[in-house]
């Protein structure tokens, strides 16, 4: 496969959030600001990348019948590592993302990459895929977070550009759905062209 294409597919063409619609729970829950979305995105990206690497390396060692439990153990370990490291070194972000970090384990997107890609491809391809898809996920969450932050708090990455409150609804759960819905529509329109 063309590695460049392999890398870029995660942004729009096979964007995990907008097109594949995977990992919507953290996408909706953590994206109250662009920074939070980005943090969550990078955390997930780290897990995807690392689990892709490990799964790709051990793919022949693991018998088929136990591959899912093995992958889950691997993913869970990396998630725990992310959780601990974040709590230790980025307490503020950890506070914000809190509950959603452990939930990366059940993010279908992560297991999906391990199962659908890394377990069948070479190490290099898996690294490229993990990075590309992870960046795509980060891109989606950051975009969603930015949209919600701009509309909801009149700010972007914490920088207030208009005084006063924005449209609160975008900070709340319903706003997450509205913003995600319109971004999905937009991504589909771009994909069609």
């Amino acid at each position: 496969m063309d590695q460049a294409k392999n890398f870029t597919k995660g942004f729009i063409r096979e964007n995990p959030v907008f097109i594949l619609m995977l990992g919507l729970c953290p996408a909706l829950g953590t994206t109250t600001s662009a920074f939070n979305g980005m943090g969550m995105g990078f955390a997930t990206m780290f897990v995807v990348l690392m689990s892709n690497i490990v799964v790709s390396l051990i793919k022949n060692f693991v018998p088929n019948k136990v591959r899912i439990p093995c992958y889950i153990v691997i993913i869970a370990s990396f998630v725990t590592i992310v959780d601990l490291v974040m709590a230790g070194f980025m307490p503020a972000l950890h506070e914000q993302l809190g509950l959603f970090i452990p939930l990366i384990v059940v993010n279908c997107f992560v297991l999906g990459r391990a199962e659908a890609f890394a377990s069948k491809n070479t190490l290099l391809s898996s690294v490229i895929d993990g990075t590309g898809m992870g960046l795509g996920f980060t891109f989606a969450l950051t975009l969603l977070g930015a949209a919600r932050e701009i509309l909801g708090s009149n700010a972007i990455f914490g920088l207030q550009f208009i005084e006063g409150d924005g449209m609160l609804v975008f900070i709340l759960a319903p706003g997450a759905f509205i913003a995600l819905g319109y971004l999905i529509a937009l991504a589909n329109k771009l994909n069609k062209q």
Partner: protein
Amino acid sequence: MDKLITVSPSPHVYGDDTVKKLMYGVIYALLPAFLVSVYFFGIGALIVTAISVVSCVMFEYLIQKYMMKTEPSVSDGSAAVTGVLLAMNLPTNIPWWIIVIGALVAIGVGKMSFGGLGNNPFNPALVGRVFLFISFPVQMTSWPEPIVSRLQYTDAATGATPLGVIKEGLAAGVPMSRLAEQIPGYLDLFIGHLHGSMGEISALALLAGGIYMIARKIITWHIPVSIFCTVFLFTGILWLINPYDNADPVFHLITGGLVLGAVFMATDYATSPMTPKGMWIYGTGIGVITVAIRVYGAYPEGISFAILIMNSFVPLINKYVKPNRFGEEVKNG
């Protein structure tokens, strides 16, 4: 034969009603409430209504012309009705840009996303209103002082609605009897001399509009009556059980957006059931949810949420509640 004649299937005559006439009928029915509002809130009422109607009509035109690429049908008046109803649901001291956002959401999200007039599952004006309510809670819950703020727009002195006073008071443990002193008398409440959104203040004017619409057969009586009955019964029972901590049913009927909601918002064609039986179920549901939110919920008023919630049940009601089919249940008497 020297000229063409039309040959078409029957019927060969048609009723006078057109969508346009019905929509303008709704606007005429809203006139009394609008005039009462202008009397109490002055220029604020005029500005808010003008901005709301103009932006709704404009957004509908732009979306139809440039996004849906169809022939704009703003002349049917439905966008204007949405505009007036949205204005009716706003305080008259709300900044203009909030109204424009509300109009965009009402028309763009509430109506055009679903394919335009007749296809929207939720009342567009209420979608706009609830969106604003969650987005700008501060601006949406400070109501100008009637009469004294006639000449002010956004700088008007504000106060709480009677429902808000009761809700706050009861939450703080103040008994009903003492709270009653803080709210206007029932006559004032009925005429519309109180704090509230622009169009909801005068139960009298709204009922007049409702009677006009029923007489002109724009709406049927089922939905408003079922909502009123349910609210009256439900609050009446609560009041009889514990008059110290519950407002009486008459108070519930004439305050807040109940009359506006029951007469003008819940009866929206596209979002209400098609059969009288369905309308009863729908109206009863709205009544129950409204009272539940008012009495047990976090907000003092709940009719908007109640209508939107029941809107979502309308397709289900329409699927399972059918008109009385002639000859299906043979009742020979």
